[in-house]
C-alpha cells in the first residue's frame, strides 16, 4: 500500500521537494496538494518580468497541469487548508474537502507585511506576492496614473520598475537613508538610487508613512488618493504597493499545536515538533533563522524529500546566499556580510565613467562580503571564494580585478568562467555547480542552453546566470556552440522543423526518400518522430502531387480509427454540427447489435463513439455507416475534428444568428483537411456561448451585428481562453477568414503544434494581418485551402469499405486451424 502524502501550499519549495521525491522514490506516495492560490506551481521569482511585460504567466509556469497528471498527483487549486487535525491525521480545506495523511508537508510560505497605518485597507492598496497581485497592478496600470511603492528593497524596486514600464508615474518611499540597505553598502545604494532615478522613478528616502488617505465616500466607494508622510508631505497616488517585508505564515500550524516562533520550528531534518509533519520554505525557522530567497529553500526541499524516501542522513545547513536585482539594465550583486568593523579590511574599485563599483570585505585573509554594482560577471567567482573561505593572501593585490587577472591571462570573455573550480556554484536558485554542468555536457553531449536547463536546471529559474551557463557551453564546445542553434526535429537530422519546411519548398522535395537523401538524414528511414511530420509537411505543401505514405502515419491515421488499450478500435462517424436524426441513430443501433460492439458513448464533441470494434470488423462497420449516409468523423486525425454548435436562432430565444447552420457549413467545407495537430471548432449563437467556442482552436460567437471570430484556445493539458481575431459581418466572410486562418496554420505550424502554441510563437498580430486585414493575402490563403480540399474530401471509410488497404484489416495467416489439423 502506498502511503498518503498531503502537501499544504504549492509554492516553489514543495514543488522542488516533490520533484526530488518522484526522482528517488516514484512509487512511495499517493500525493495530494492543497493550494490556496488557484493555480499550478510557478516561478514566483519571475513575477517582475510578468509585471514589466517581458514574460507571460505561461513562460514562468514550473509544473504545468500535465506534470501532476503524469505523477498521479491530485492538486486542489483554490483550496486553502483551514484545519489540521493531528489526532485524526486529516486536513480540511475551506471549500470542505477532507484528506487524510500518513505524512504531511506544511509549505505555506509567507505573507507580505502590511503597514498598520490608517487607510491600509483602502481599495487601491496592494502587496506584492502572487500572480493576483500582478494582475491587480496591471489592471491599475492600464489607466495610467500615479503609483507609490512603499519599500525600497528588492521587491519594491522590481515592482517600481515594472509599473514604470507599464506607463505609470512611480514614486518609491524608503524608510532608510539608502536603498536595499540590507544587501548593499551606502555607496552602492547611492549608485542604485541614481540608476533608478535615471529611469524616471522618483525616490524619497527617510520617508516615514503616516497614513493613506481615501477619496470622499460621498463620491462612491473610497479608494486611495494619496500617501501622507510623518513630515506632512502628501504624495498623490492612484495605486499603493507595499513591499516592506514578509512574515512566515504560521497561523495554521500554530492552531494545530505545532511548535512555532517567528516561523514553524523545524530541525535539520525538516521535521516539525510532530514527527509525521514536515515543514519547508519561507514558513519555517531553523536555528533562529528565517529565509526569503529560494536557494536555501531548494536545499530544504532536497532534505525533506530524502527523509520522506526513507534516507535519514541528509541535514539542512543554511549557507550564505547571494542577491541579484532582476531589473533589466541594472547589474547588482551582493553576498555575505559587509558591515564595517575593526577587524575587517576592504578593497574597493570604482570606475565612475563606466558606473562601476566593487567592494570586497576581508577578515583574516578570507573574503566575507562582496558588493558589486555595474559589472557583476565575477560575482560567481567571488561568491565561491566566500563560501569556501579560501585563503586569498596570495592574490590579494589583484583580487578585485577578478579571476582573469588573478590567472594572469588575457581578457578572454570566457576566462572568468574557465578560472572557476568545479565546485563553484553557477546557479544559485537550483544549487548547480560548474562541475555538474560540464559533466552533463560531456555525458549527454549537450549542445544548447535548453539542453543544459533540461538536464541540470542551471539557469532555469530566475535566469540571471544564463550568461555564465552560455560561457560554460562556449568553453566546452568552442565554435560548436552556436547560441541561436535551432532544435533539430529529432535525432535523425540537425535541421529544425522550420528549416525542413522551407527546404521542401526551395528544393521541390516531393517524397520522403528524396527528402532524406537531399537533406542528408542521418538514419536510413527516419524514426517515429520525423516520419509522420515529414509526411504531413509534404502532403500540405504538395496537394494532389504527393503520394500519402501510410507507413509513416501513426496507426490511428493509417487505419482511420482510434486504437484502444486492448488493441481494438473506436469508430466515430461525423454528425455535422452535432446534428443527427432518427435514421442515423437507428442505423447506429443496428450496427452496434450486428457487430456486438461493447460500448457506445456520447463524446464531448457532440457525436457518438462506438468503442471496442475489432480491427477485422472495421471495413464492414464503415460500409454499414456509409449506407446510412455517414462518413468518417476523423476523430483520430491531426485534422479537422468537430464543429460544436448550439441551437441558435433555430430554437433558442437568445439566438442572434443561425449558429447551427453556420457550424454545419464550416464542417462541410473543412472536413478532411489535414493540419499540424488536431483542430476543434465551435459556433455559439450568442455571447452566452453554450457551444463553449472560446476554448476551441477556432470559435465563432454570433452577435446581433455579425460574427466575432476567436482562435488559439485550449482545453486539454493546458487550458486557455481564445484570442479575438476580429469581427466580420457575414457568414461568407466567416468562412473565408477561417479557411485563411487554417491554411496559414497548415503552412506555418510545426507538426503536433496546436494552434494556440503556433499563435504564441509567431504572434497574434502577424496572424491577424495575414488572415483578416490584408484582403489580398486572405483571399490567396483561402484559395490555397480550397485547392487542397479537392484532394482531401474523399471519405477514407468508403475507400476502405471498398477494399483499399485490405491487408491492414486481415491477418497474414491464421495458424490456429493448422494446429487443430495436426
Amino acid at each position: 500500500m502506498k502511503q498518503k502524502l498531503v502537501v499544504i501550499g504549492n509554492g516553489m519549495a514543495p514543488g522542488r521537494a516533490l520533484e526530488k521525491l518522484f526522482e528517488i522514490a516514484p512509487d512511495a506516495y499517493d500525493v495530494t496538494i492543497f493550494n490556496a492560490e488557484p493555480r499550478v506551481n510557478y516561478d514566483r521569482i519571475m513575477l517582475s518580468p510578468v509585471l514589466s511585460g517581458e514574460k507571460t504567466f505561461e513562460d514562468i509556469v514550473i509544473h504545468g497541469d500535465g506534470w501532476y497528471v503524469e505523477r498521479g498527483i491530485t492538486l486542489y487549486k483554490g483550496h486553502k487548508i483551514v484545519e489540521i487535525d493531528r489526532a485524526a491525521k486529516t486536513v480540511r480545506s475551506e471549500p470542505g474537502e477532507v484528506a487524510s495523511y500518513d505524512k504531511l508537508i506544511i509549505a505555506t510560505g509567507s505573507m507580505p507585511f502590511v503597514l498598520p497605518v490608517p487607510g491600509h485597507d483602502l481599495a487601491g492598496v496592494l502587496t506584492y506576492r502572487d500572480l493576483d497581485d500582478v494582475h491587480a497592478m496591471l489592471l491599475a496600470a492600464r489607466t495610467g496614473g500615479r503609483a507609490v511603492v512603499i519599500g525600497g528593497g528588492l521587491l519594491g524596486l522590481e515592482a517600481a520598475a515594472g509599473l514604470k514600464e507599464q506607463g505609470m508615474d512611480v514614486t518609491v518611499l524608503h524608510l532608510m537613508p539608502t536603498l536595499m540597505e540590507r544587501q548593499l553598502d551606502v555607496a552602492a545604494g547611492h549608485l542604485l538610487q541614481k540608476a533608478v532615478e535615471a529611469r524616471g522613478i522618483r525616490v524619497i528616502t527617510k520617508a516615514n508613512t503616516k497614513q493613506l488617505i481615501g477619496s470622499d465616500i460621498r463620491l462612491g466607494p473610497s479608494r486611495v488618493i494619496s500617501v501622507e508622510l510623518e513630515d506632512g508631505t502628501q504624495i498623490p497616488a492612484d495605486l499603493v504597493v507595499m513591499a516592506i517585508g514578509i512574515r512566515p505564515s504560521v497561523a495554521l500550524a500554530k492552531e494545530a499545536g505545532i511548535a512555532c516562533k517567528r516561523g514553524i520550528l523545524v530541525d535539520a531534518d525538516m521535521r516539525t515538533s510532530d514527527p509525521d509533519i514536515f515543514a519547508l520554505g519561507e514558513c519555517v525557522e531553523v536555528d533562529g533563522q528565517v529565509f526569503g530567497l529560494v536557494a536555501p529553500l531548494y536545499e530544504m526541499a532536497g532534505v525533506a524529500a530524502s527523509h520522506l524516501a526513507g534516507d535519514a542522513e541528509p541535514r539542512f545547513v543554511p549557507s550564505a546566499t547571494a542577491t541579484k536585482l532582476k531589473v533589466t539594465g541594472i547589474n547588482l550583486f551582493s553576498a555575505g556580510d559587509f558591515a564595517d568593523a575593526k577587524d575587517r579590511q576592504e578593497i574597493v574599485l570604482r570606475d565612475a565613467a563606466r558606473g562601476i563599483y566593487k567592494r570586497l570585505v576581508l577578515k583574516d585573509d578570507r573574503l566575507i562580503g562582496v558588493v558589486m554594482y555595474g559589472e557583476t560577471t565575477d560575482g560567481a567567482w567571488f561568491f565561491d571564494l566566500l563560501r569556501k573561505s579560501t585563503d586569498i593572501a596570495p592574490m590579494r593585490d589583484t583580487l578585485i580585478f577578478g579571476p582573469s587577472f588573478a590567472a594572469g591571462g588575457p581578457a578572454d570573455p570566457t576566462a572568468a568562467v574557465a578560472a572557476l573550480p568545479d565546485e563553484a556554484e553557477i546557479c544559485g536558485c537550483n544549487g548547480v555547480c560548474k562541475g555538474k554542468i560540464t559533466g552533463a555536457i560531456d555525458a549527454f553531449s549537450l549542445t544548447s542552453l535548453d539542453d543544459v536547463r533540461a538536464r541540470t536546471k542551471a539557469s532555469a529559474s530566475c535566469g540571471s546566470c544564463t550568461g555564465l551557463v552560455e560561457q560554460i557551453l562556449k568553453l566546452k564546445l568552442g565554435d560548436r556552440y552556436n547560441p541561436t542553434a535551432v532544435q533539430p526535429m529529432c535525432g535523425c537530422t540537425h535541421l529544425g522543423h522550420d528549416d525542413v519546411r522551407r527546404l521542401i519548398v526551395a528544393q521541390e522535395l516531393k517524397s520522403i526518400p528524396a527528402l532524406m537523401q537531399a537533406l542528408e538524414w542521418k538514419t536510413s528511414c527516419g524514426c517515429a518522430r520525423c516520419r509522420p511530420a515529414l509526411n504531413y509537411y509534404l502532403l500540405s505543401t504538395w496537394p494532389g502531387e504527393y503520394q500519402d505514405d501510410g507507413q509513416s502515419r501513426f496507426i490511428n491515421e493509417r487505419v482511420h480509427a482510434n486504437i484502444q488499450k486492448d488493441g481494438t478500435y473506436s469508430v466515430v462517424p461525423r454528425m455535422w454540427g452535432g446534428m443527427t436524426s432518427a435514421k442515423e441513430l437507428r442505423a447506429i443501433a443496428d450496427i452496434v447489435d450486428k457487430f456486438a460492439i461493447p460500448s457506445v458513448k456520447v463524446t464531448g464533441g457532440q457525436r457518438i463513439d462506438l468503442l471496442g470494434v475489432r480491427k477485422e470488423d472495421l471495413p464492414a462497420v464503415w460500409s454499414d455507416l456509409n449506407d446510412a449516409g455517414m462518413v468518417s468523423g476523423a476523430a483520430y486525425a491531426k485534422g479537422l475534428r468537430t464543429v460544436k454548435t448550439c441551437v441558435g436562432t433555430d430554437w433558442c430565444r437568445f439566438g442572434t444568428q443561425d449558429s447551427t447552420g453556420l457550424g454545419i457549413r464550416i464542417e462541410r467545407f473543412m472536413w478532411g483537411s489535414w493540419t499540424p495537430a488536431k483542430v476543434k471548432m465551435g459556433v455559439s449563437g450568442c455571447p452566452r456561448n453554450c457551444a463553449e467556442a472560446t476554448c476551441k482552436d477556432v470559435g465563432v460567437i454570433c452577435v446581433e451585428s455579425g460574427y466575432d471570430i476567436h482562435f488559439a484556445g485550449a482545453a486539454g493539458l493546458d487550458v486557455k481562453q481564445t484570442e479575438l481575431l476580429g469581427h466580420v459581418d457575414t457568414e461568407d466572410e466567416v468562412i473565408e477568414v477561417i479557411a485563411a486562418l487554417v491554411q496559414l496554420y497548415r503552412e506555418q505550424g510545426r507538426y503536433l503544434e496546436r494552434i494556440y502554441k503556433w499563435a504564441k510563437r509567431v504572434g497574434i498580430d502577424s496572424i491577424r494581418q495575414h488572415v483578416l486585414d490584408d484582403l489580398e493575402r486572405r483571399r490567396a490563403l483561402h484559395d490555397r485551402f480550397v485547392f487542397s480540399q479537392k484532394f482531401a474530401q474523399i471519405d477514407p471509410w468508403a475507400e476502405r469499405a471498398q477494399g483499399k488497404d485490405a491487408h491492414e484489416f486481415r491477418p497474414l495467416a491464421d495458424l490456429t486451424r493448422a494446429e487443430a489439423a495436426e
Partner: protein
Amino acid sequence: MTLMEKAWIDIGALDDIPRLGARVVKTPLGCLAVFRAENDEIFALDDRCPHKNGPLSQGIVHGRTVTCPLHNWVISLESGKAQGSDEGQVRTFGIRVDSGRILIDADALFARPD
C-alpha cells in the same frame, strides 16, 4: 525431428507485407507480428509490447525497430528488447524468406512457454 530438418511453415508472400510495415499471424498461443524492414529483412515477434501489451504490429517501423502505438516504446526487431531507458523484452521467432515466401520456425512457434 532433428535440428537439421527443422519444420518451417509458409505463412505468406513477402509482398503481402508493405515495406516498413507489419502483418499479424494468428496462432493458438496468441498473435505474432511479422515485420518487413526497408531492405526487405523480415522479423517475427510476439505481438505484445513488454510495456502494457500494446500490439506492436500497429506501430511505425524504422530501421530495425518498431515504435509501439500505445506509449511509444521503441522495440528492437532483432532482439525484442526495449531500447533507450525502457526495460523489457518480447519473444522473437526464427523466420526467413525463400523465393519470395515467408517461412516461420514451427518448433519455436508451438513451443511457446505461456
